[in-house]
């Protein structure tokens, strides 16, 4: 059982509220729910839509064909009519959005009380909402006989919730940012919870200020983090290099969207793996971690903080719009590694420095400093073996091996269900788990949300193994992979 529902309307008509209400209700009923958001860079009007997929089994992606389309505006029905299954249902007409919530509940044969409870939690416009929802509920007939849920107990969160919760539970002291989609909601979430926690958030004049304020706070021994997307990260890179030479533990949350340039501001991509690895002049240590779901976002944020504090290095958590702003059903937040703060205010320097912390040009001291940084690099690599650097899904003995990183995890896990495929998801980009070459079967297939196969480049660099062009499944239109389409792509390449 797997249903796909599309909610479409103009920005400002509330497709998000509607999707959230249904999603939360379905999760409380014990279903697994996933939804992604497709929205334009505008505030009112335009065409925004969310696709919600739910099942009695775990679900992490959407499909290309819809069981139900909810058209809050007139345009949605027209734009998406080709995506509706032959026996699919279209709910449209000139109604307020909670009318559609009621109608949807009825169509799915779900109890009205559950919706009522969600609207009570929503609070805003309760009296109007409940009336509209009842009108919708009474206006339509039950159309689907959906499988009873198994009373799974989950919570419904997006990837950026994983980042912000992971940061809070790891004891962050400061978070600085400049607004940039799709990283902004981490600042929003942290700012909303600031008064109940002992940390400080601040929006500064630009990303250069953001990273340097983070460095200033981190120097004093505090856990300091900042967040941005590709363009803002570019601005930060000189200071990233400063953190590298000075040994200052900053944590950067890098949420990707399509570049180059301003690219496509509110869509998704995995084009920044290489800049996360290489940004900053000179040679210095860093850790780069890439979560593929909210739980991993939570744990890898914690691990990024752990590595930063333990080794006095910058750490980068690379996510993207698709993971950050899609909602997933997760069991609960897991336990985290305890963080020990390691720094205190002393004499730091952007120059190579001597024993007193003053700038030096002495060749012997320069060489010693570089060798010490190289040694720390080896210690970081050694320490990384205490963590799960990659995950394996599917048939562990299969010769068909799909490899990927980040948010593509969801669509791949769903797509390989029932196939003779092993899936390796790389979580540690730096230090890279070279040992995973032992896991490669004879037929290695790449999946990435970019045009050049940056993970394939990294694998080639570290292991010498080349993934053939015809075995690279790449999507670079700003959209995430869909389960059914990806399944076909993988099947075509299976041996």
């Amino acid at each position: 059982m797997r249903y796909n529902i599309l909610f479409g309307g103009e920005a400002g008509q509330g497709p998000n509220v509607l999707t959230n209400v249904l999603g939360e209700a379905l999760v409380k009923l014990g279903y697994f729910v996933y939804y992604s958001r497709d929205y334009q860079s505008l505030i009112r009007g335009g065409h925004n839509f969310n696709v919600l997929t739910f099942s009695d089994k775990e679900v992490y992606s959407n499909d290309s064909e819809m069981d139900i389309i909810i058209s809050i505006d007139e345009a949605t029905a027209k734009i998406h009519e080709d995506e509706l299954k032959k026996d699919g249902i279209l709910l449209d007409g000139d109604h307020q959005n909670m009318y559609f919530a009621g109608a949807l509940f009825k169509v799915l044969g779900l109890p009205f009380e559950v919706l009522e409870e969600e609207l009570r939690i929503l609070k805003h416009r309760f009296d109007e909402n409940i009336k509209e929802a009842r009108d919708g509920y009474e206006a339509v007939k039950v159309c689907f006989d959906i499988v009873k849920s198994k009373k799974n107990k989950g919570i419904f969160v997006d990837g950026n919730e994983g980042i912000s919760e992971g940061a809070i539970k790891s004891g962050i002291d400061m978070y600085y940012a400049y607004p940039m989609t799709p990283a902004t909601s981490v600042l929003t979430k942290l700012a909303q919870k600031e008064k109940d926690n002992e940390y400080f958030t601040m929006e500064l004049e630009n990303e250069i200020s953001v990273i340097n304020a983070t460095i200033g706070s981190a120097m004093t021994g505090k856990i300091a983090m900042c967040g941005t997307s590709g363009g803002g990260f570019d601005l930060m890179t000189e200071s990233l290099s400063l953190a590298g030479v000075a040994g200052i533990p900053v944590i950067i949350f890098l949420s990707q969207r399509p570049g180059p340039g301003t690219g496509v501001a509110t869509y998704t991509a995995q084009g920044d793996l290489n800049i996360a690895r290489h940004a900053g002049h000179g040679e210095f240590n860093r850790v780069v971690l890439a979560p593929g779901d909210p739980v991993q976002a939570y744990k890898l944020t914690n691990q990024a903080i752990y590595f930063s504090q333990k080794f006095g290095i910058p750490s980068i958590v690379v996510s993207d719009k698709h993971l950050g702003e899609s909602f997933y059903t997760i069991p609960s937040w897991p336990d985290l590694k305890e963080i020990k703060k390691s720094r205190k205010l002393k004499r730091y320097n952007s120059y190579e420095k001597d024993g007193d912390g003053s700038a030096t040009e002495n060749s012997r001291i320069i060489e010693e400093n570089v060798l010490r940084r190289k040694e720390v690099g080896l210690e970081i690599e050694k320490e990384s073996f205490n963590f799960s650097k990659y995950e394996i899904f599917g048939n562990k003995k299969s010769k068909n091996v799909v490899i990927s990183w980040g948010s593509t995890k969801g669509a791949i896990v769903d797509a390989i269900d029932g196939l003779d495929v092993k899936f390796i998801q790389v979580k540690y980009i730096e230090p890279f788990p070279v040992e995973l070459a032992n896991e490669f079967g004879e037929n290695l297939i790449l999946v990435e949300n970019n045009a050049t196969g940056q993970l394939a480049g990294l694998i080639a660099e570290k292991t010498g193994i080349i993934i053939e062009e015809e075995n690279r499944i790449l999507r670079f239109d700003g959209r995430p992979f869909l389960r059914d389409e990806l399944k076909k792509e993988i099947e075509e390449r299976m041996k």
Partner: protein
Amino acid sequence: MELKDITTKTNPTWCPGCPNFMILAGVKNAIIKFKKKREDFALVTGIGCHAKLFDYLNLNGINSLHGRVLPTCLGIKKAKPELTVFGFSGDGDAYAEGMEHLIHAARFDFDYNYFVHNNQVFALTVGQPTPVSELGYTDKTTPNGVSVYPINPLKIMLASGASFVARVYADPKQVEWIMGEAMKHKGFSFVEILQPCLVFHPQTSAYKEKCYSLEKEGHDKTSFREAWNKADEFDYNVAEKIPTGVFYQVERV
């Protein structure tokens, strides 16, 4: 705390006779007189001749990047509000590479102190003009001479809402005094120190004779309009009379 507690073993490499030595002396004396522990201070410098101060002044902090002194000060102050935080920059640092931070530091008005060594030239990179170099200034990069007017940083600070705006000459007594005033001020303190570069901008040594004290003249530092008029007296282009002292001070914190 004695002089030796805040002095490193590093030999200064400023040019002989550089007014930066006078600034350093004033800074050290002010810190000692403030009767705090060495650990109560944090020092941030940028890149340029001024930044060598970090190597000679044994305080915790960072010799940071070019132009990024102020956000670093903000990060330190917000993390450890109990610290007295000093930022030092040159005019390239403050008025070219880092101008956006300067305007916003004035807007934020957090309690740290900023000292700009202004020699109206990029000295450590051997003599290129900065945004405050006068019309006609020439060097190898600008053989036909600077053809645009210098900016007036004091007016920018006043317009940006700075709560403490001051200027002194690179004289140990003046520097010591203004540091004390800046440290006492609750909020962002902006202090420009006129520091003639003897190698690339020797004609500005004449500034010393043209400076006069606002305090002695009975200037009303609580009046924005008077502060603005006084800031207008020296346009960084032609020096006739150069007011020094506190132009403007108002406490908002």
